[in-house]
């Protein structure tokens, strides 16, 4: 196994060549905040929370998609990065309708946890109060677009792990929307196998199990990683 050595926040790390900075950081026990990254599916570099500074590079680079290089000096938690990350989370809160007190994911929410972790207690930006709908046409699950942060984790698990590609992104800018099928009610999409992988993938209260009430919605992230690894190792051959 070819190895690349680098430093992360001053600590020397040796990782398998071709690893991402995020993987290297995990190995070194350094936490880099992420929201769009999900173990087991491809990375898209969308949430910008994992941006890191690299000595000698002017640009900030997303740790989830940037490969390590020999003698790279990575800084994961500079003051500037902290400030930018806080702004990202503030903007995520102000662009949706996140009223945690009445949310199924209250207490089990990655966005909420991120706000706590980054010390964000209010948003400096104007709340936009978008008019978004809730789709409960699926017999078992529902999607509340008000809580969606467009991490596209649901899109990727459904496409890459389940192979159904029920979800996709439509429109752009403020009109951005996660759609089921051809922008149909979720329950009308025949391709949906009701496997629940998107439910487990969603970091917020956007996709939920029907019948969960406030603060009840928990997820089993490990399941997705287990499925992906089992498939990679060919554990089920028929």
């Amino acid at each position, binding site marked *: 196994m070819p190895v690349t050595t680098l430093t992360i926040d001053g600590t020397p790390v040796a990782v398998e060549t071709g690893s991402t900075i995020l993987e290297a950081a995990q190995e070194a026990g350094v936490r880099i905040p992420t929201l769009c990254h999900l173990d087991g599916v491809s990375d898209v*570099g969308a949430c910008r929370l994992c941006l890191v500074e690299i000595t000698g590079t002017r640009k900030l680079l997303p740790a989830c998609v940037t490969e390590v290089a020999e003698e790279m000096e990575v800084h994961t938690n500079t003051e500037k990065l902290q400030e930018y990350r806080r*702004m990202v989370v503030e903007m995520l809160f102000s662009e949706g309708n996140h009223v945690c007190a009445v949310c199924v994911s209250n207490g089990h929410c990655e966005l909420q946890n991120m706000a706590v972790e980054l010390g964000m207690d209010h948003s400096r930006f104007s709340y936009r109060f978008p008019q978004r709908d809730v789709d409960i046409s699926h017999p078992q699950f529902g999607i509340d677009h008000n809580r969606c942060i467009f991490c596209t984790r649901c899109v990727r698990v459904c496409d890459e792990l389940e192979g159904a590609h029920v979800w996709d992104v439509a429109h752009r800018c403020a009109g951005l929307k996660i759609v089921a099928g051809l922008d149909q009610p979720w329950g009308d999409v025949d391709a949906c196998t009701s496997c629940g992988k998107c439910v487990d993938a969603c970091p917020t209260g956007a996709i939920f199990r029907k019948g969960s009430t406030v603060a009840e919605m928990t997820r089993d992230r490990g399941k997705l990683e287990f499925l992906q690894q089992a498939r990679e190792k060919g554990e089920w051959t028929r």
Partner: protein
Amino acid sequence: MELSELLEIGQQERTRQKPIRVHCCTSTGCQAANSLGVKKKLETAVNRNGLSDRVEVVGVGCMGCCGRGPLVQIDPENLVYEEVTPEQAPSIISGLKDSSVVEAQPGDPEHPFFTKQFKIVRETSGKIDPERIEDYIAAGGYQGLHRAIGEFTPSEIVNEVSKSGLRGRGGAGFPTGLKWATVAKAPGDRKFVICNADEGDPGAFMDRSVLESDPHRVLEGMAIAAYAVGASEGFIYVRAEYPLAIERLQKAIKQAKKYGILGTHIFESQFDFKINIRIGAGAFVCGEETALMHSIEGKRGNPTPRPPYPAQSGLWGYSTLINNVETFCNIPAIVTNGGDWYASIGTEDSKGTKVFALTGKIRNNGLIEVPMGITLREIVEEMGGGVPGGEVKAVQTGGPSGGCIPASLLDTPVSYDSLAQVGSIMGSGGMVVMDNQTSMLEVAKFYMEFCRSESCGKCIPCRSGTVQMYHLLNKISDGEATEADLEKLEQLCEMVKHTSLCGLGQTAPNPVISTLRYFRHEYSELLQPETINV
């Protein structure tokens, strides 16, 4: 095809052409002013006057001074008429017959608008019929490609392009030779060449004009590129809002194939190259190279992080060369005249010429091609004729990714570095002149509104940051903002610039940053005193 056969086609075309050519612009700008009506009347008048044996009316591409269209130009006399109406057409033709007084507004070919130009990309634009390959060949077309294949190895071509110092004209100014060398060196025997003709910047129409006026030059540039980097398939990605450009490109590809200039065994060599057209729905973000490639692949036109760069992993994962229309159009001349010749034009860091769409509050609107190093003043005051009834306040270059340069800096030479030094960029070539009536805050708002609605929405800094910035700009212009809001706006500028995923978000704050740099008082004047909320 031997070189002699190519030259023979050109010779035949010249023999076929009548001694007097009445050029009537049929590009979009002039068509919008009814140039097709003018052309029809010119043709009728030629027949009526019995001149058809020595006079022909030729529909040509853009001549440049589009703001004064429809334009008619007569060769070889080099007479120009502006704002021609169909009613004036007979008088223009009878003028040819008996030198009678022509009742049409003459143009001045000695005006700096024309004399200060240096045409490489637009050399034959407005002189040839874009729908006839023979006319392009008669003007020397496809000789560069013939030479490239017949006389040079691919690496020699890459060397010439490197030597020329040409930098990408799509906005970022990346050295073209370096990009070609990277693709040429990339492993794998399947590679692609893409021509980026998306042109989404508001106010820009350079690429459209070149495609409409001289489609074969683009094809020739692409074919030379394909030969140099070892590609056998290419795509032109052009927006659906450019129907005339698409139609002429399709015609041009068909004609070139017929002559064995595109397709298999080009000029009877072992080199194959076919070009496909891909029509985009007209999203600004689809001009970003990774988004553009996803769009060609039939996916959503979303940018993805680079690296990997297209040269490493592009279309369907294969090494891909992607260049702008204007970049490709420089190539035939570089091959024909050599890289050193090209490098002798322009400045140290910016070689050659640049095409600009000169618009806004200015007397002579239109397209110009100027040598790099020319000053903004020469362009605005001499070529453009200045602001009618007013003064220049600022010049905006680089579109939504660029900035506003104040009148006090008009002596800045046009080059990648010097424009960057004054807080703007070369960009793809939009140049908007603003007079002293213009509110710079409104200008910033205009571009922010554009970026806001064009953001693909993939990453939060751009998707939401542009909305928040637009909101703050509005708050300021409505007189409802305080110093704290201006501070927040500046913080946002910095954050969006450094954290966005692609060039759209990374450059979206530029118009705000540059107007704040030079016209901050226009913002502060509108601020309200801080009040304490109890």
